[in-house]
């Protein structure tokens, strides 16, 4: 079995598991919706103010819901020692990491797409555009790479839920800033270009962590 088919098989396993349990989507969407409801009572912004503050609120909602979802999504792998089982089969550890990252990417991206709807319907803030999909894709990839590594670390500590946030949030800060600024530009009517320095930050971040994280994951899987 070559590496690509192993990767696809592991990815299929995660997708089927999510389809059956719906743990990621349920946890993250319910949490995201609750944030939207709480925001409605917590802040009162005019249309002009939404254009400035809206992108930040949107991405904070995405990131917090994402962390909740990622924590739930990997629970099965730890509860049943499935990850160790796959490792004992002799599967390349980079492939294990990439399969978890890509499944996480699909879940996070889907969650973001769905969570835009309550922002439009309930809060009257519509950031949606085709360019925003590209920003969401780049952010989701970076977020998935970092959270796959740190959820694995956090799961083996005593206060998993607290540690997960403390580990992931400071590290994903650059892509959060880039995504917020890009969304702000898009909402203000600017066109997205590949030479935009925020796109460079998003792409650069993903590239750097896509190289370093599989190596680190392979080392800590020994434990």
């Amino acid at each position, binding site marked *: 079995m070559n590496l690509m088919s192993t990767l696809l098989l592991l990815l299929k396993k995660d997708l089927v598991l999510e389809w059956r349990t719906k743990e990621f989507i349920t946890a993250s969407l319910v949490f995201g919706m609750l944030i939207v409801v709480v925001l409605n009572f917590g802040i009162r912004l005019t249309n002009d103010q939404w254009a400035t503050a809206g992108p930040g609120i949107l991405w904070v909602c995405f990131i917090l819901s994402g962390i909740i979802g990622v924590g739930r999504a990997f629970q099965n792998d730890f509860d049943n020692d499935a990850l160790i089982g796959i490792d004992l089969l002799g599967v390349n550890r980079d492939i294990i990491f990439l399969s978890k990252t890509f499944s996480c990417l699909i879940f996070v991206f889907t969650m973001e797409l769905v969570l835009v709807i309550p922002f439009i319907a309930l809060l009257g803030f519509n950031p949606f555009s085709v360019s925003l999909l590209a920003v969401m894709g780049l952010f989701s990839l970076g977020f998935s790479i*970092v959270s796959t*590594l740190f959820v694995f*670390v956090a799961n*083996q*500590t*005593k*206060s998993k839920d607290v*540690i997960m946030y*403390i*580990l992931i*949030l*400071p*590290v994903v*800060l*650059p892509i959060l*800033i*880039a995504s917020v*600024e890009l969304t702000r530009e898009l909402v203000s009517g600017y066109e997205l270009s590949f030479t935009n*320095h*925020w796109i460079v*930050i998003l792409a*650069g*971040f993903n590239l*750097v*962590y896509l190289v*370093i*994280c599989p190596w*680190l994951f392979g*080392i*800590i899987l*020994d*434990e």
Partner: protein
Amino acid sequence: MKKIRNILLAMPIVLMLVNIYLIFLVAPTDINLGHIQRIFYLHVPTALLSFVVFFTVAGLSVSYLINKNKAVDRLSQALAEVGLVYVTLALITGSIWAKPVWGVWWTWEPRLTTTLILWFIYVAYVMVRSYTADTNRGSKFAAVLGIVGGINVPIVYYSVMLRSIHPGPVIGDETKLPDSMLWVLVFSLITFGVVLLALVKERHFTLYADQVISDHKLRRQQKSII
């Protein structure tokens, strides 16, 4: 041996006393900022050294993950813990300086934001170790965080810098220090460096002693089982 250790412990105390004397009685008072400028001699060395320590921890973390050398891990832990104290001091002194000079306790300027993120990564580094039951596992996780943090800090700085270019001018106008202030700053930097080394040395020693005791306990338990 004990005499040498006592001298090494006394040196930072003497240097710090001289440093305080230089800062408050020798260094000239700034014409524009007044006495508040003197906190600069505490703030700059702690901030600078906390960044140096942080990148050293990142380098040592790579070395530990490759060679699994326990001494390197102990040194990383000692450096990170003392680094956390230094970065906390840098943030506090920075805020005290910012209030009368900028009119606010805090501003989301690149250097300040990066230092705050550095503080969070240091806290996470120390927490990961203490929240992991298995010491070896904790060391590996901390090393992973040390490396990721080392890569992340420059990216955070760059992205916050880009962000702060848009709304307005960057706070912190760079002006050349006169020699009478510069040499006090250099002396303060050396003093804080020596204090850091002394603290790291002491912490490293207690970590080593801790390991020797736990190894001894383990051996005794193994003997009693046999």
